[in-house]
């Protein structure tokens, strides 16, 4: 499941729905990204996606992750629009027979989502708004996975 939503995300409801009836799965890892207030420097976060294109691009990576880590299933929900500090921005859940695979796949998906997924992010501060570029460490996080391939 890959979904974009303008409405608030309910990570707990998603986790319970995702885990229900999984008799052979064993391991469910999740990540919830919350908007940070940055001590008042961020009044709101605003995320723009390209509907259709954004889900399709995320889908390509999710299919890769499913094969690479042997996932049973995944769920990716991403908030778009204006987001208040403390509110969930992104929720990723992965299910696998063993926890190593579930953790690594969740980590991998988040590295992609935070650095390369087709979103445009604006931070609204007390003195106006600015567009955010990806942080260098986001790209560094993502290259970890390339290195592992070439090991």
């Amino acid at each position, binding site marked *: 499941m890959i979904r974009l939503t303008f409405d608030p995300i309910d990570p707990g409801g998603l986790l319970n729905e995702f885990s229900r009836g999984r008799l052979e799965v064993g391991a469910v890892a999740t990540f919830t990204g919350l908007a940070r207030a940055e001590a008042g420097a961020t009044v709101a976060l605003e995320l723009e996606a390209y509907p259709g294109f954004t889900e399709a691009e995320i889908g390509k990576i999710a299919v890769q992750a499913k094969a690479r880590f042997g996932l049973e299933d995944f769920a990716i929900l991403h908030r778009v629009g204006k987001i208040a500090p403390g509110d969930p921005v992104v929720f990723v859940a992965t299910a696998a027979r063993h926890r190593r695979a579930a953790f690594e796949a969740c980590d991998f998906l988040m590295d992609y*989502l935070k*650095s390369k997924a087709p*979103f*445009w*992010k604006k931070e609204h501060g007390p003195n106006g708004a600015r*567009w955010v*570029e*990806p942080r260098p460490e986001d790209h560094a996080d993502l290259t970890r996975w390339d290195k592992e391939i070439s090991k």
Partner: protein
Amino acid sequence: MARVLLFGRLSDVAGWRLREIDSPLLSTLLTTLAEEDAALGEALSGPGVQVALDQVIVRGDAPLNTATEIAFLPPMSGG
């Protein structure tokens, strides 16, 4: 009339997000937009701006038909 979409800071520069513009080629569309709004023209040719035709990234020029959706995508920030 193809649909032109601007994302991220490009729509802030242009003051619009979606317009219908008639143009035979991607290159002619870019010329039209730049003549009309020099700041937008510069932003569209800036580093890292990608173009998607009907949600597929393209490089170089391309013919446009009336049903084409052209999206200009500045560097993606991730979520």
